[in-house]
């Protein structure tokens, strides 16, 4: 009886409890990289002063991180966590600032969270806090004139790689654009 009861109980809990397993509302979106890319693509001046880089490799949407997105050496960390489809976009900002935006679908919120956690714990020993975002949702990693922001909303995981900021003592207080990008991405996720 116990053997029969436990699976039923588990099914019941999974069905009624949001966040406990995959509820119907969080079922993975279909694999359609073009649609995914359009959902997350930042239109020109959607963030004031930022437009898509005109270079031929300025935008990519697809499922092949190596042959398509061309990141090879870093691809494993995403595919190992269940990467399904993604969108990479390069944007030119004011004052020669530059952004590589990566939006990736991991199918479930749990998988996107795991991806974020792995980057956070494995690669960002001294995270920079992003205003209005808790560290379990978004963190920054500051370089001399750049700031990489890692975040997750729903089943999607994001990287906002900002450079050309030109500040040797960069903090997020001095970099509100990071927050602007996250706000847009959060809005697009919802």
């Amino acid at each position, binding site marked *: 009886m116990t053997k029969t009861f436990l699976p039923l109980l588990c099914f019941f809990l999974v069905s009624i409890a949001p966040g406990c397993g995959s509820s119907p509302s969080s079922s993975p979106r279909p694999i359609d990289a073009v649609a995914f890319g359009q959902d997350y693509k930042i239109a020109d001046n959607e963030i004031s002063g930022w437009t898509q*880089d005109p*270079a*031929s*490799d*300025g935008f990519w949407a697809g499922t*092949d991180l*190596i*042959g*398509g997105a*061309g*990141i*090879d*050496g*870093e*691809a*494993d*960390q995403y595919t*190992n966590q269940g990467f399904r489809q993604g969108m990479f976009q*390069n944007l030119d900002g004011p004052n*020669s600032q*530059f952004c*590589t935006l*990566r939006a990736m679908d991991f199918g479930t919120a749990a998988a996107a969270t795991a991806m974020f956690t*792995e*980057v956070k*714990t*494995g*690669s*960002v*020993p001294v995270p920079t806090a992003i205003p209005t975002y808790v560290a379990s949702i978004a963190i920054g*990693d*500051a*370089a*001399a*004139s*750049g*700031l*990489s922001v890692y975040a997750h909303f729903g089943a999607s995981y994001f*990287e906002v*790689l*900002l*450079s*050309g*900021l*030109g500040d040797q003592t960069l903090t997020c207080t001095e970099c509100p654009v990071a927050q602007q990008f996250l706000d847009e991405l959060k809005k697009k996720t919802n």
Partner: protein
Amino acid sequence: MPENSNPKRRDFLKTAAAGAAGAVALSTLRFDRAFAQTTGGWVSGMQVNPNIDNKRVVCCYDTKMLTSTPATTFTAQNAAVDSAKVASNLDQMAMQLAQKTTATEAWATIFRTGANKTWATTKVAIKTNAILGTNGNHPRVAVIKKICDVFVDQLGVPAANIVLYDANSDASKTYSTYASLTDATKIRAVVSVKAQSLGGMADVTITNVAIAGRAITGVADFVNGVTDILVDIAVVKRHSGPGTSYSFGSCSLCMKNHLGTFINKGSETGTGDASATGLHSLAAIFEINKHPAVLGGNPVRQQLCIVDGLLANGNGAGGTWDTRVDRLVMGTFAPTVDYLTATKIMDDVMGKPDANNNLPKFLTEFGYTTTDPVWVEIAGGVVTPTGGSGGSTGAGGSGGGGTTGAGGTTSTGGSKANGGSTANSGGSKAGGGSTASNGGATANGGTSGAAGDNNGGTIAAGGTTANGGTTANGGTTANGGTTANVTSESGGSPATGGTSAQPGTVASSAGGSTAAPATSGAPHASGTSSGCNVAGGDRKVTRWGAMLAFGAVVAAKLRRLVSDDDQSS
């Protein structure tokens, strides 16, 4: 006195002299281990170049290599580079690496071709990093061009025999517009589509593949021994792979750059990037860097490793450059180049340490320890001495001269005073003053700096061929230059060594009656000289130093004794 009237004494002298000479000769190499040539890849203890220690790595820091801080595009990056400055600095670095006094000698020491080859028939390949195209962080054109210029102009390698490649990401998409076989203002080399100009890819056996069953291929002309010389040019990239599946010291430098010399079998086809996921493990990367394709051949194929650290990726390999580092690094052995670049630049300068403590493995895997590598840093125009400074070609007042500036009469170095490229401390040229040049706390002798009446600084380090002055006084821990010559006079009547004064590695000394074999640390000023013309002393004192101190004294005494003997016979 009859000749050989005292044969035992003379025999002893000859033996002792030979021993001293042997010590001097050995000291030139400064190797801790036997060197060997191999055709089969890495073997424990092998030296890539019998005249250059695997452990020796040279770094140049010069903010003037970039005339401005560029935007992210590769076009903008190259436009901001002062190519002449980069070329000059690479010459200086080669001189420091090979411990030669001219760039011509240095490059001729670094690059070697086979016994049955002429330079006209020598085949060269240069590995670059072409990933992420338009806005990627790639080795700058000026760096690659300089290396090609050395091969073409100095050594006589036909431009058509030089191939620039990245089998992973296709260098032709990034570099073709910067290359020509005939235009000397460009990179004179063939820019390969992936590895097509190098015979394509050939099957190799890799034991430590990261994905079971994955077949790996390597550049065919390396695997088959067609290419004679391989130059590995990487950029500084932090690599944020996860700790559990792919952690490579949090960096992507020369060793990892060979993902693109080796790739997954079959992935080179098509227009997209190839893949090397089968090699995404530390063990696999070590294995390919020991492979005969890289360290095989006679001479060893991979003869030079350069890290272009002008602009770096501090936050991850996937973005654009985000940190201006203004540095170039050079060595013959990728593991030590990578280890020191990661620790001295990525950690110390960029504040991006290895997140997984894997860096020591870069050395231990090859039989070295973390205390073995020798980091030779030559500085550019950002170090300002407290005593003032001369212009780039100006005459110093109380401060030091610039690159070729003349020192003042009482030139006093600052806390980190550095000599010029031909800085003659106490001489008539650049550097210290004519009478009493005083080194700073960490004063470094010039490349060929000859000391006048110098006083070494606290840690006065001699230049490459620093010569002690007539009354050269070593500093507290004055270190001789690499070929520090303490002449019969330069030892000086009261040549006084420092507290732990040591001679250079080749102390060709015929000192005076009390010639202490120290002193060569000819310190002088000029911190504002731009360009890496400054010979920084080694940061590391070798055990040979102590032996040579003894050897030099013995040699000097022996010479006088022999001379006395000869005169009397």
